[in-house]
């Protein structure tokens, strides 16, 4: 609340999100065991691990996307700027407006490019006037690095774009709501290498303004884009630290096996 102490410190970045003893069950099956994790502001945090390790589950806990899944229960606390997002007083709609998400498969709505980006501002009532809306759409597309490619065809359906463009459109759509945090669930897994490279560049640019958490199955990607990396295995957070440290001097033998390609 007090402006003074929220000013970022370059040396020790502020902590944006703290996970405290998070357990997740799908029905009777436990998917996450007692995960503690803190995510720093204006950094990219990568979650890696073999498939089924719980990294996506954890990501979906951060904006409560697991709420939509029947039989899924979350225990423990996740603090966003000190407030538990699972607290009763927290509104999930408002939460998701603060924490945007980009999915594995590009999922533009079957609407025009403009309407895709304008969707969030419209439903949240952020922009009432058409001019404001146009400004937001323009800004978001510029930030997502898509403006140059689509500026002349904003009224064409978003589904007509290429896979990489679609994913950048989804990123623009998320940015348009002005979130603090953007969650990305394997955003490049459906894309070709060139499109992947563009998204990775974009992620690096976005870091300036947003806190980013990215799930990836590619260790190279984690190494390229992230500042900190968390390694999940069988629902446990095995190791968490600076990306450099994880990749050069892993402490846990499981981490080492994974990054050297022995498991996974």
């Amino acid at each position, binding site marked *: 609340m007090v*402006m003074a102490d*929220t000013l970022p410190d370059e040396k020790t970045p*502020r902590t944006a999100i703290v996970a405290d003893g998070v357990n997740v069950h799908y029905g009777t099956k436990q998917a996450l065991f007692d995960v503690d994790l803190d995510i720093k*502001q204006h950094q990219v945090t990568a979650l890696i691990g073999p498939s089924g390790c719980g990294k996506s589950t954890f990501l979906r806990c951060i904006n409560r996307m697991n709420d939509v899944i029947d039989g899924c229960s979350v225990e423990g606390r996740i603090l966003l700027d000190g407030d538990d997002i699972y607290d009763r007083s927290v*509104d999930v709609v*408002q939460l998701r407006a603060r924490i945007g998400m980009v999915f594995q498969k590009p999922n533009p709505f079957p609407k025009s490019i403009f309407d895709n980006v304008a969707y969030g501002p419209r439903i949240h*009532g952020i922009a009432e006037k058409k001019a404001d809306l146009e400004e937001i759409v323009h800004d978001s597309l510029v930030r997502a690095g898509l403006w140059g490619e689509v500026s002349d065809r904003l009224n064409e359906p978003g589904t007509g774009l290429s896979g990489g463009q679609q994913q950048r459109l989804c990123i623009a759509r998320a940015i348009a709501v002005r979130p*603090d945090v953007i969650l990305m669930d394997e955003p490049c897994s459906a894309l070709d290498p060139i499109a992947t490279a563009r998204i990775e560049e974009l992620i690096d640019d976005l870091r*300036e303004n947003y806190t980013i958490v990215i799930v990836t199955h590619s260790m190279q990607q984690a190494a390229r884009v992230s500042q900190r990396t968390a390694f999940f295995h069988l629902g446990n957070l095995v190791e968490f630290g600076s990306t450099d440290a994880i990749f050069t001097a892993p402490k846990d033998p499981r981490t080492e096996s994974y990054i050297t390609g022995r498991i996974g």
Partner: protein
Amino acid sequence: MTDAPMNGQPGEVRRGLSRTDTMETVRKGLRRRYAAERRFKWYGRIAIAIALGFLVVLVGSILFRGASVITQTHILLSVELPMDAFSVDGEVTDESLQRADFGGIVKQALRDRFPDVSKRRDRRTLYQLISTGATYELRDHVVADPSLIGQTIDIWLTASDDIDMLDKGYIDRNVDSTGRRVSDQQIAWYDALIADGRLERHFNTTFFTSGDSREPEQAGIWGAALGSFYTLMVTLLLAFPLGVTTAVYLEEFAPKNKWTDLIEVNINNLAAVPSIIFGLLGLAVFLNVIGLPRSAPLAGGVVLALMTLPTIIIAGRAALKAVPPSIREAALGVGASRLQTVTHHVLPLAMPGMLTGSIIGMAQALGETAPLLMIGMVAFIVDLPGGPLDPATVLPVQVYIWADSPERAFVERTSAGIIVLLLFLVVMNLSAVMLRKRFERRW
């Protein structure tokens, strides 16, 4: 929630709208948006409530009106059977029995019960207490036991439909007599009979054992039930083998070409052709060109078979599709021919699904009315049909015929007919569901 941790970041402030402001806007909109959400949810609830409400009213009102058909009002009369009424030259023969004036005897019994009725017009209203069918009830009773002749017997005879309705409370006796089917006089007689214990309701055998009649109290559902049975038999005998063989051909053998495409398009379209069109086909082709008998279950069954064929074929194909290819490969792998593979392995596995589809198709056919009107199954038929070539009607058409009749008592019959029809449908659909559950297989 605490906001604005990143306020003041370069590039964050756009057009005077900060992130703090954004979150504030979102927060302000929440109440309105959740109200819209609740409203939307209520639309859905109301829609379902409307649909289910209609179902409840529909079934409820019919049950309410039809259940009373279980019983039928009877009147106990002391009938004198004088010898001379039944004998020719002092001798009772079969012929003399048949010729006896049972109607007159019943009327006499009524006059004896109410001796002070003397005017002709009053007598006629008096006779209306008893069903016209009572004559035949008495005749059957006497013919079965001729030794009764010469005695005075007490016999329960069916009351007329108006008395039945009065007794069941469907006719309001407090209404002014001009607007009511039963006269004040008749009500007085009715009360007298009740006081004597001579008017009771007994189980309504007539309804469950007879054919149609113009008189509601003599009309029964059995003739229509038999008609439905014969019709469905014809339908089943035609549609099941044809449906199964077509499904097998299209799913297992047919090459992918224009001709099979045409067949498939035809099947899909036939499934959606209005049923009355099939009736026109039946009239123009089966009756007028081929010359099948009018009003007969045979013609009706053929028409319904064509109608249910798409249902059976589509269900059959789905059942065949559900059999995994590995089964076929296993059979072919040990050297079975394609036909052997299908008949020995695929078809037995798909059979429960095909049967389920057929039962559902038969249930549809059982409830179908319109095409049968076209081929004359709407005729008024009193006799019970003895086979698929006899003139007959079916349950839903019987319901239609009764629904068209003006007598109040026919409303009860119609509702009761519907209950019988629905019972058959419930049984068929339940057996389909059970069959599916019993043989459901997860591959």
